């Protein structure tokens, strides 16, 4: 059973003039079979946490550890982390012109599984996965994210999640910019992924809306680069009613 352990993680962003601390000691453990919701206001550092775990070069780890099944992710390159079983669904997936979706997916699946899937089986697997996410099959031949709408990009992130079958999925605001229908489709994808009970999900979101479809076991409130309160699903309901104001003040007074 997989475990993602984040211990006292401090992360800074380098600007031209200074090194600006964003994360100030994050502690979080996600075990297989669990879904965690990390909720916080804009600018609290939620996305920084996601990118830092995945290894984005812009973020500087100043101290702390991130372990996946006891292995130090921070010692790995970005692609090694993915092959170790980590997946980050991005908030703003980039467009990569000329690289077709099918070519990209096949390369990614080959890298993560350690061998190239048989073309016929892969084609079948891909079209099945696209169908369950209501993605037009024609997208397979389009450039990666090229000209995709916001909702289409998010569905493709979940398509990748379902094909790559990681041990731990970090979903960075996958719900943002989705209408209700797309939100349902995406949520069903996440639930299919976690249904085995053998994988963990860290769902980063600003809003409680997606939590009606993806039920969290734990909710963490994230303010100014650290978790300030933790609880069960009832915490999300409280946030829905009260907003983040209370926590923002708590964070500011620290």
């Amino acid at each position, binding site marked *: 059973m997989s475990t993602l352990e984040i211990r006292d993680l401090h992360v800074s962003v380098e600007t031209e003039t200074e090194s600006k601390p964003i994360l100030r000691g994050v502690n979080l453990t996600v075990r297989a079979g669990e879904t965690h919701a990390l909720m916080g206001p804009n600018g609290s550092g939620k996305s920084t946490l996601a990118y830092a775990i995945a290894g984005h070069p812009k973020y500087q780890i100043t101290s702390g550890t991130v372990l996946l099944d006891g292995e130090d992710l921070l010692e790995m390159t*970005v*692609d090694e982390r993915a092959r170790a079983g980590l997946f980050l669904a991005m908030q703003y997936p980039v467009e*990569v012109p000329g690289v077709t979706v099918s070519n990209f997916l096949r390369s*990614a699946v080959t890298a*993560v599984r350690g061998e190239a899937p048989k073309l016929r089986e892969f084609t079948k697997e891909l079209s099945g996965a696209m169908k369950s996410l209501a993605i037009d099959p024609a997208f397979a031949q389009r450039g990666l994210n090229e000209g995709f709408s916001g909702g289409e990009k998010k569905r493709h992130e979940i398509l*990748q999640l379902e094909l790559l079958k990681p041990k731990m999925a970090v979903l960075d605001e996958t719900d943002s910019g989705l209408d209700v229908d797309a939100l349902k489709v995406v949520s069903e994808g996440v639930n299919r992924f976690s249904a085995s009970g053998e994988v963990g999900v860290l769902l980063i979101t600003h809003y409680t809306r997606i939590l009606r479809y993806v039920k969290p076991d734990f909710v963490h409130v994230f303010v100014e680069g650290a978790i300030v309160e933790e609880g069960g699903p009832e915490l999300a309901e409280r946030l829905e009613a009260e907003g983040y104001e209370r926590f923002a003040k708590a964070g500011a007074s620290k």
Partner: protein
Amino acid sequence: MPAVSKLDTAGSFETADFPVPNGREEEWRFTPLRRLRGLHTGPDGTEGGEGAVSVAVEAEPAVRVETVGLDDERVGASFTPLERVSALAYRHAAGATLVTVPKETQVERPVVVAVRGERPGQAFGHTVVRLEPFATATVVLDHAGSATYADNVEFVVGDGAALTVVSVHDWGRDAVHVAYHHVSLGRDARFRGHAVTLGGDLVRVSATVRYTAPGGDAELNGVYFTDAGQHHEHRLLVDHSQSHCRSRVEYKGALQGDDAHAVWIGDVIIGVGTEGTDTYEYNRNLVLTDNTRVDSVPNLEIFTGEVLGAGHASASGRLDDLHLFYLQARGIEAEEARRLVVRGFFAEMIARLGVPEVEERLTAAIERELERSA
């Protein structure tokens, strides 16, 4: 209203009308003249040598292939040299290769014009490709070998005819080639040009498009991969002196290695009194290593208020870190991610070529380049 093309008023067939360039002229300022091996002075200059370049044409029987003298009335009728080297090439070419596609003939297989450097030293050539009204054809100009070569190529596309030209500059590493491609389009004529520049020490291709009647449509595409020490220069001039014509210029290149130098000049003129012109030009450069140089200069001159669309864009930069991060975050190793992005950069341009043999060759060439830089 009859419009006068700048292409007619500025040029001359007399070599003496063009002073020997010194490198400060607008049209020569990016070209390393010392590496031209005297092509800009001419065979009477300091480095006059007797080179040889052979031209062989392979075509379906329906296509007429002739070798004619420069005094043939079908030669030199569609252009006037705008630069000294063009005038020199016209004066010193031994004859012209003339390819004619008769009226309403649809040529299925590409006509291949193989240009081979046979003996070092200066050499000059002249080729004319004529499509009579409503003919269609694809012509591949395939340049290889070692040479110091200057040539004029005329593409005369008759009313309603459609010509696709793929010009592959796959010269040996020591070759110098200064080429002038003169495109002349009749009413509703269509031209698709693809420059593929890989080899040579110095390759400088100047293409001009003139419209002789309304309704012409020209697309000029280019792909280049410029390695250490190479100079690849593509100069385009589209003269919209007629109304209701369309042009698209799209060039993409990658550079790697010390002193790789790519130059792209895109000039578009929209003439006085014209209307309904639709034009767009675009150049993108992917800079794969340090110590390379790109000069990319789009120019758009508009002398009328009645334009349908006119624009240009130029961008040069390194591989995007965000692209690489995204692919790596899906488990793809850094080197493989880099290859995917570079292949993707060229993919659309390659697919557009429409000549499978050349597409395969170019794909293989890019793979070799990627191997080299791995």
